[in-house]
């Protein structure tokens, strides 16, 4: 899944560069976070991600074609062209609608978990936030409510050391770790090497166990590195050394897992290459299909009148009138 996620990112990034859509965000170097954590929780558990956990959908087998159609805002886009590329949503796959507003999902996940507990449901919630975003009030409200109401939720801080142009110190990462924020709320705070697939898996499994047994929430800081730019609108050359990514000692999660498995004799270069080829092929095929449904600007979108739908469950008179004004 990590390999597939990377192949997907590369393809979509190229698509944006080719002008097939307006925007894209990669998670290169952070694949282990979303993928290992998704594997460590149950398929029924609810995820409240930030925009850098596309690996969740891929690990859960959400169709690549649908993801691509969302990125292309085309006629098959499940979100009807309404959202910026990569702001996926799928209730069916336990993936909450991504918001452009940072941090809001963190405290919402606590509410979902409270509801699950109220219903005696054994599903838990998991949510992800960037280290930069921990400075928002939502982070504090999430920890406060999670502690007070003993909500079955896993609160993940993805510390990829950068928030667009500002390094983790601007968010307070130099005075203390983000994991230690949990202490003051009486919550356990774990800090793991986010590029070590197995470590991430183990820590998440522990927290999931704890939540499922109604022992309450945990905070996990996943220490990783944003290997690429913040998004296709960003130019990291302006604020960090070009070779920093390469110099990052904890390396590439894919390469590390591969090396580890090969050392164990569970995997081989050949198998890996084959896996990469297969992923690339799968992505290529999916992209071919997705592009068949149109790319941004190709004019192949949901019908314009859908623009006025879903503001409310029904359509009040003023929206009907506006739709008529537009003549659709």
């Amino acid at each position: 899944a990590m390999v597939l996620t990377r192949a997907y990112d590369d393809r979509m990034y190229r698509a944006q560069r080719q002008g097939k859509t307006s925007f894209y965000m990669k998670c290169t170097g952070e694949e282990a976070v979303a993928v290992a954590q998704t594997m460590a929780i149950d398929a029924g558990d609810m995820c409240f991600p930030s925009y850098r956990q596309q690996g969740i959908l891929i690990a859960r087998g959400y169709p690549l074609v649908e993801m691509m159609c969302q990125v292309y805002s085309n006629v098959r886009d499940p979100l009807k062209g309404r959202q910026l590329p990569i702001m996926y949503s799928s209730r069916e796959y336990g993936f909450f609608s991504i918001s452009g507003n940072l941090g809001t999902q963190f405290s919402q996940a606590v509410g979902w978990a409270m509801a699950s507990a109220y219903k005696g449901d054994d599903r838990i919630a998991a949510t992800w936030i960037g280290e930069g975003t921990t400075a928002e009030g939502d982070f504090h409200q999430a920890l406060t409510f999670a502690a007070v109401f003993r909500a079955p939720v896993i609160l993940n801080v993805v510390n990829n050391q950068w928030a667009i142009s500002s390094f983790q110190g601007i968010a307070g990462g130099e005075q203390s770790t983000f994991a230690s924020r949990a202490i003051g709320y009486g919550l356990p705070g774990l800090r793991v090497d986010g590029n070590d697939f197995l470590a991430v898996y183990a820590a998440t499994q522990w927290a999931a166990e704890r939540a499922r047994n109604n022992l309450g929430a945990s905070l996990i800081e996943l220490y990783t590195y944003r290997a690429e730019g913040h998004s296709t609108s960003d130019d990291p050359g302006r604020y960090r050394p070009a070779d920093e990514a390469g110099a990052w000692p904890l390396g590439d999660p894919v390469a590390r897992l591969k090396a580890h498995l090969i050392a164990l004799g569970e995997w081989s270069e050949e198998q890996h290459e084959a896996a990469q080829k297969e992923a690339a092929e799968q992505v290529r095929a999916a992209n071919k299909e997705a592009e068949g449904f149109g790319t941004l600007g190709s004019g192949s979108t949901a019908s314009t009148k859908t623009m006025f739908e879903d503001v409310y469950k029904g359509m009040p008179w003023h929206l009907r009138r506006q739709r008529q004004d537009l003549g659709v």
Partner: protein
Amino acid sequence: MIQALNSAMDTMLTRDPDVLVFGEDVGYFGGVFRATDGLQKKHGMTRCFDTPIGEGGIVAAAIGMGAYGLRPVVEIQFADYIYPAFDQIVSEAARLRYRSAGDFFVPMTIRTPYGGGIFGGQTHSQSPEALFTHVVGLKTVIPSTPYDAKGLLISAIEDDDPVIFLEPKRIYNGPFDGHHDRPISPWSQHPASEVPDGYYTVPLGNAAVLREGADLTLLAYGTMLHVALAATNDCGVDAEVIDLRTLVPLDIETIVKSVEKTGRCVIVHEATRTSGYGAELAALVQENCFYHLEAPIERVTGWDTPYPHAFEWQYFPGPARVVEAIQRAMGA
């Protein structure tokens, strides 16, 4: 009115296990205005409970619960304290259905007392309804009678979209017509003061014509509805008094029908004037009734200042100011 609101929540907690009621001081204490009095005792700690003092967290939790499938009813202790939750309301609750193409939605009701007349000073007297009417995806409801309060609140709770339910705190415990210097005529004299037990609804989006009239149309809601009625009696003009009840979606037909009949319109609200909801009403009326209008549409509103503690009655747009506006409109 407070008992009517309490009864609405009691009724819904009884009917629907997915309804939860929570907020600051809402549980054990029953709310600083007693709106949730006895609900925790009757329905249990898991159905009606106290939260930390964090409006943002309260609304965020309600959104998450809504995404799960519950129907949260939250109280913000005063409308003046809803701003810490503004991002969750505007960026999240209001947009979730749209941005997820219907995949997720927020069947949440936010109850909050608004308005002055209680010497609450600038942070216990605000009327922020206009802000919410500008946010697409929200419904904004303001009752003016006990009967409507219960029926509208039940409709709001059952509604699958987020509803901002603003409660005129000045008339929580009895009617008030703006004549602060006179004895108050009791609810009993008010048509809609009888509150049936049990379940009933008043649909969202329907205004009520509380007084038919031929000469002028008075548009009001909440506490000011009673001020508008008092002003009508005071000046003897045959005004048609319309209680909007729901600000968004607005019952435009009832308004247009009335103004086309009367040709004159006065809008009354307690909120500050500039960009208040009266502006939208005036814009709509002149767009829809331009050729029937015989006088400029008048707005009687709170002044564009914070609500000053010592000048409660100079600030509050009472019957005298409404009468002046009516006379200007009739004179024109």
